[in-house]
């Protein structure tokens, strides 16, 4: 995979987000005003579907299950969040929003590995 068209720029109004499918991979696109962000559709905490549990306002995405929050402009965790949001690289070409989707980004909710090399347990 490579750069993929996810949606038309006009499909996601400023300060909102929407879910799309690209070759069977679900991606949320958020319009942060001066650009777009693309990320997997589930909360990294407990896999809550963010189109239902998520609120996007003023650059900050909140999952209302436990109020984990992320600054979508920078990707940083905010407040109570303990895990980063994975993001796809995004660019705009004309009226299209493209994401670099090499493989589906997904969180390891049910970690298999040893504690040492386990992303889930490696802290922030």
């Amino acid at each position, binding site marked *: 995979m490579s750069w993929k068209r996810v949606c038309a720029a006009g499909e996601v109004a400023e300060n909102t987000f929407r879910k799309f499918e690209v070759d069977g991979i679900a991606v949320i696109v958020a319009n942060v005003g001066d650009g777009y962000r693309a990320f997997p559709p589930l909360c990294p905490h407990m896999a809550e579907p963010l189109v239902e549990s998520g*609120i996007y306002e003023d650059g900050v995405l*909140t999952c209302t299950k*436990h*109020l*984990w929050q992320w600054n979508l402009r920078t990707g940083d965790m905010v*407040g109570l969040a303990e895990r980063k949001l994975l993001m796809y690289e995004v660019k705009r070409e004309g009226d299209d929003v493209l994401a670099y989707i090499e493989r589906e980004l997904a969180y390891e909710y*049910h970690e298999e590995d040893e504690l040492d090399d386990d992303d889930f347990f490696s802290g922030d």
Partner: protein
Amino acid sequence: MKVTIQSKSGELSFECEVGENLLYAGLRNGLSLPYECATGTCGTCRARVMEGEPEIGWSEAPGLSYVKQEKREVLMCQATAQGDCTLRVPAKVADGGGRGVAPEYGTGTIARVEKLTHDVMVFAVDLDTPMRFDAGQFVVVETGAVPGGRAYSMINYEDGAAVLEFVVKQKPDGRFSDWLFGDDRTGETVRIFGPLGRATFHPEEGKNVLCIGGGSGIAGIMSILAKAAGEGYFSDRRGYVFFGVRTAEDTFFMDELSAHAAAAPDNLEVVVALSDEDVPPALERKYSALTFATGLVHTVAAERMAGRWDDLIAYVAGPPPMVDGALRMLIIEARLPGTDIRYDKFG
């Protein structure tokens, strides 16, 4: 028996009785294990069994939708220890250092049951040993008559309470509420585990207080008001209470709320929102210290709080759709940071 917890912040262990609930055992030993409802619904206390054979418990717990049982994941609040075991918990877990006292087991006797509306009751439990708790906390109540525990927020507040008071809403197929409503239950023994919950009020934080409660969700708010009143908190801080019910017939605690409002007329506003009918003038006349409005409680709160969001902590409790509506309002309209919003999610 020994239970070992592997967490994001390292490995901890604690002693546990055979057959004891793993979450409760960890919490009473002072570990900050993740949980919210403590009764099988929310999924927050999920863990993976690495060693040992804990028993799974309630096989239809709604919270199991968050775990992969084929990968030996469990809800700690439902699992019981049968021997030494090791669990992996996807969170940071500390040993001690949390706010408030560690929960413990207790017993008590139902001392009073009183119907407040057609489907809401208050019941009081005389504890065999007094309990310290923070305003806004809850306990898990169990009776031998009905399997499983139920989480109820205390409505009273004392530092070292000998009596705990709770509100129960009768729900279709609510086995505990059916039991409680079904006959005279005074004198029955109940088991208690608590205190639990982090949606707590701490006067030393010094902030204005916004409480949004729907139906029996007013319970913990009553405890916060009791604590605040005891400290004269609203002599120099502002308080805003929004209590939502469907109709005038569903209102309760009107006298208690009136007394709180009357005691701090300059700084405490109590608004009762009726979602399903216009406000009967007789109700307004009867409770002149309260303000009444028509609408969903979080919508009413958003309208009346406009421009007054500064320097406050918000407490939210009620049925899941109301909690969700209130959270959205607090984040989108009030722009409150998540750290200033407190609630325990039961759904």
